[in-house]
């Protein structure tokens, strides 16, 4: 407890704690200000640019924030395009978009608003249109109707989205690390820096972890409780009618959609930035790159190929582990009743709420000086923990997607198999497994690509550069003077993998983007 007192009386740590809460809460507010109206606009109105806006507005999610920040630097950094423009034309002082906790909030807002958008859109689509019509019929104007009926009914979806924004922005380590020392006064980088600076039992580092977990759990439990109380059966029993969709045209269309189009464009600047930079010779103190080349791709393919091969190896292994565990856990949850059922259910979604920094530091101290039989180096110097941490962090994807497909498989199919003489294992192998294969593969792919872009546990658990995967490589490259281009090339590879996977999962397995990012 004395460490706790010391922690709370050290300005650096109290400031970090307060700053982390500010980042979490303000990010929720800013993403809500964009996500909620945009969701309402996209579900309740019909207009020309709608489809394009729908498509583009989910793209920020494929960009891990630590890569995105690199891309943003080219436009919003101290010598980025915008400040350069302001300097050249107005001789203005540079605006610190990407500095301090303001910078972190800026990045999180552009990256995370789709979480609010997708969750709210899903909720809005599920509201019985007759409820809004009833309100209108009883005299409520559009704003009144939104306030009294629509918003209260979409609250469960909104709360789920807001929770994810809070958790992700609170635990994000990559963004402050990329922004640099002005953004270090936050819990995640403090924990990371204390631990990696030397002593993995550093009490302050560990206390920072404790606070992060505590904040996450409080948020999680609060939302669970709140949403649990308000799970309305909003889908009507009768024939669902089409929602009220109003047309938006002319000046109103421009006035309402223009701010959102600008925001969506801004949220795609990270993508544009890293793609341009990956092909750039030099991009510094200029609006756009000064020349174009393939050297960066040559560099990552032939000079440092281990980043790519390591990624493929670790992520395949961890995804395979997730598939096996996910299938087993989902099967238990859906088909069996046993003591501890509900705890397992909670436990299986828990990794979503545990920050990667915390997991990484936890592994380091738990397996400190532990040797596997027959090995001469401690476990913490191997890549086993990296793979394990990836698997644990992404387990909810396979559990959830298997859970969903299992629920679609009627028990009577398994009963029919048993009735025809198959035992439990035969039934599982011949009936259940083939039928849930879609969910299994979809979940596995998602677990795979999400491991590709995992940064926090990677930085903590990778023993040395030659064992580093792609995400480690990006971090490594941006700390060398001429490495930005190569970092961006690796980033392009990473987000391409994410994008392709999501398209495949969408097309082949019919999952909507929205269902992949809901709490």
């Amino acid at each position: 407890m004395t460490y706790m007192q010391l922690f709370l009386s050290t300005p650096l740590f109290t400031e970090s704690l307060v700053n982390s809460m500010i980042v979490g809460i303000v990010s929720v507010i800013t993403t809500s200000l964009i996500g909620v109206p945009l969701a309402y606009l996209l579900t309740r109105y019909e207009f020309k640019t709608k489809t394009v806006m729908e498509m583009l507005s989910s793209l920020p999610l494929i960009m891990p924030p630590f890569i995105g920040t690199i891309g943003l630097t080219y436009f919003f950094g101290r010598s980025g395009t915008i400040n350069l423009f302001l300097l050249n034309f107005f001789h203005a002082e540079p605006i610190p978009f990407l500095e301090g906790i303001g910078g972190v909030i800026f990045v999180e807002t552009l990256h995370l608003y789709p979480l609010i958008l997708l969750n709210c859109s899903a909720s809005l689509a599920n509201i019985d249109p007759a409820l809004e019509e009833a309100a209108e019929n009883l005299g409520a104007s559009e704003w009144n109707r939104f306030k009294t009926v629509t918003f209260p009914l979409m609250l469960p979806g909104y709360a789920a989205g807001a929770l994810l924004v809070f958790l992700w922005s609170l635990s994000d380590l990559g963004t402050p690390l990329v922004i640099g020392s002005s953004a270090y006064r936050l819990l995640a980088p403090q924990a990371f820096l204390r631990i990696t600076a030397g002593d993995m039992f550093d009490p302050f580092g560990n206390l920072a972890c404790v606070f992060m977990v505590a904040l996450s759990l409080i948020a999680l439990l609060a939302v669970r409780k709140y949403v649990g109380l308000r799970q309305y059966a909003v889908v009507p029993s009768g024939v669902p009618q089409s929602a009220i969709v109003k047309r938006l045209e002319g000046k109103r269309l421009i006035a309402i959609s223009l701010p959102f189009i600008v925001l969506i464009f801004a949220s795609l600047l990270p993508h544009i930035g890293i793609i341009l930079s990956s092909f750039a010779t030099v991009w510094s103190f200029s609006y756009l790159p000064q020349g174009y080349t393939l050297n960066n791709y040559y560099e990552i393919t032939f000079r440092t190929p281990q980043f790519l091969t390591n990624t493929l190896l670790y992520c395949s292994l961890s995804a395979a582990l997730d598939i096996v565990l996910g299938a087993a856990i989902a099967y238990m949850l859906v088909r069996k009743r046993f003591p501890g059922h509900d705890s397992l259910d909670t436990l299986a979604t828990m990794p979503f709420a545990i920050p990667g920094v915390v997991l990484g530091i936890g592994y380091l101290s738990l397996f400190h000086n532990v040797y596997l039989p027959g090995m001469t180096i401690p476990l913490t110097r191997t890549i086993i923990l990296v793979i394990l941490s990836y698997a644990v962090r992404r387990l909810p994807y396979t559990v959830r997607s298997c859970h969903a497909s299992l629920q679609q498989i009627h028990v009577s199919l398994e009963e029919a198999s048993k009735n025809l003489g198959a035992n439990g294992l035969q039934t599982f192998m011949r009936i259940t497994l083939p039928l849930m294969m879609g969910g299994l593969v979809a979940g596995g792919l998602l677990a795979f690509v999400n491991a590709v872009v995992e940064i926090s546990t990677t930085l903590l658990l990778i023993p040395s550069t030659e064992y580093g995967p792609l995400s480690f490589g990006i971090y490594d490259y941006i700390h060398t003077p001429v490495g930005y281009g190569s970092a961006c090339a690796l980033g392009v590879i990473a987000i391409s993998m994410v994008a392709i996977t999501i398209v495949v999962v969408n097309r082949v397995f019919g999952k909507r983007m929205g269902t992949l990012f809901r709490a």
Partner: protein
Amino acid sequence: MVNMRLVNLTKSFEDIVAVDHVSIEAAAGEFFTLLGPSGCGKTTTLRMVAGFYDPDEGEIYFGNKLMNNVPPNERNTGMVFQSYAIFPHMNVFQNVSYGLKIRKMSNEDVKREVEWVLKLVKMEGMEERYPTQLSGGQQQRVALARALVIKPDVLLLDEPLSNLDAKLRVEMRTEIRRIQREMKTTTIYVTHDQEEALCVSDKISVMNRGRVEQTGSPREIYETPRNLFVADFVGVTNFFRGKLSSISKDGKIATLETDQGFPIEVQYDGEGMVGSEVSVALRPEAADITSCHAVPKGMNTTHGRVKLASYLGDVVRYEVETDYGEVMRVDVHNPTGRQVFSEGTPVSLIFPPESVKIIRE
């Protein structure tokens, strides 16, 4: 109280004409029903009255006021939705008082009005309940109370009973009728259930493929259907087709022979000429069934064999295959103490000329 008029109302969705020049008038305080099969345009018509759809053509009047460009929230129509649309996040009191609060009524007045309307629908003391704690019938009553409490100019009911079980349906339709009589609110009721329509309405419009086929009192609709569709849709009907062979001197009875050769005398009201091909309709309860050979075969009398006999307590429904090869449906009401013919029994069917009507195609 205000009357409601629809003039040439038309609405298409893409290239499907959902409502096709519908003109109807509900008198002030009248219970007016739109009856028809699904997809006939009745709900679309109702939703245009509520303002949820804009008509492509035609006018909607409440009294003398043209309503076409009045937004839904300013039309003052109380609507009861098919799914009830009870707000799940509000209790009964909050649901019912919603429209009053929107109208900025003072709290005491709101309380008094809600109390009054809940009493009207027999839901006193349920103010604090949430929708999930209510049965289907109770939700129905709340929906009705919520629509009535705003004292709507026109009350709109969209298949309000279709989600209830059979017994509750019968109970609720009498309730709705009682409450409407008490409130004297002009009411538009949409249903596909002809029995329901006959039971509650002052006036019925039978709709088919976007058009009104016939408008009239329940009795007119049932007893003098104007065309084949109405005769077929409202109640059960035996149809015969044949050529008119003669018309009596007083012009009240016509004779025809069905295509199968069955000679029938029918009521004549000027529809069709001698030699023309017509359809005639006979309600199942208008024919009498007796044991075979009690009467000889002849005009309006045929022999046959019972194909199907369903005993329903208050009525026995027969399907009889006649010697002419037609299948006729015959209902015998109040069968207690009467002989019930089993399947396969030979029987005679007989019906008076006044019960058979010529139907316009």
